């Protein structure tokens, strides 16, 4: 990786992490939407600097869409039932997660692990799911979509009846 890509990588990582902190800390909904869009831009830059142009394009479109959804004003707020103490404990847990992930990234030994069970990876998995077991995958996907749509419809009807 040459210096230009490295500079792009570090600049994009700074942009995306800053946007992520904005999503967590900014008070207004439209500000959080803009912060999520900034995350999408930084993420696209990260992927592009890692030679993943198509992923960068897909991520940019998806995260801009999610940012538009978050920023729009027409959704009502749903209050969290967890109290302040639980939220503080959760924040400490997020800090612990960062420490564990950073430690495992610093160690990095598992990268050199060898798997002897045959070919394993996204390509092998997708070949299994989308070629060998296509019908079963389609059936499960249809079932999940119908279940989610049905659950959403039932929930909305019940809420409207209250």
């Amino acid at each position, binding site marked *: *990786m040459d*210096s230009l*890509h*490295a500079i792009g*990588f*570090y600049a994009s*990582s700074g942009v*995306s*992490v800053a946007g*992520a*902190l904005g*999503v*967590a800390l900014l008070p207004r*909904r439209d500000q*959080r939407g803009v912060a999520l869009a900034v*995350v999408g831009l930084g*993420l696209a830059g*990260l*992927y592009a600097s*890692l*030679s*993943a142009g*198509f*992923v960068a394009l*897909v*991520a940019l479109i*998806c*995260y801009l*869409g*999610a940012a538009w*959804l*978050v920023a729009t004003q027409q*959704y*009502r*707020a*749903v*209050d*969290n039932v967890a109290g302040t103490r639980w*939220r503080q404990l*959760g*924040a400490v*847990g*997020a*800090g612990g*997660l*960062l420490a564990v*992930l*950073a430690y495992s*990234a*610093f160690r*990095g030994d598992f*990268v050199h692990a060898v798997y002897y069970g045959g070919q394993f990876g*996204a*390509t092998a998995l*997708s070949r299994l799911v989308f070629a060998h077991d296509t019908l079963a995958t389609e059936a499960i996907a249809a079932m999940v979509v119908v279940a989610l749509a049905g659950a*959403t419809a039932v*929930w*909305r009807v019940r*809420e*409207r009846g209250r």
Partner: protein
Amino acid sequence: MSVDLIAVFFVAAGLAAAGAFAAVWRRDLTAALAGIPLMFAGAGVALVGIGRFAAAGGPHLFGQEFAVLLAIAATALVALGLGVSGREGSR
């Protein structure tokens, strides 16, 4: 200046932890939903980094397929969560 897998993992860890923090810290659940794409972004960055650096000899598409899937799933989850929460003034 160079980039290696450890740097990619550090960025992925920062994104995932920021997403977890956003998910647990926001009082409004629809705002907490925005933490999910951040956690998925961290996972996607790690996957693409593994495909770029660690999958020596293999195609780089190893992790990119899952990164695309994660980005789409993150948007779908946000849309589903906001749809379930309902529009303002609908009841």
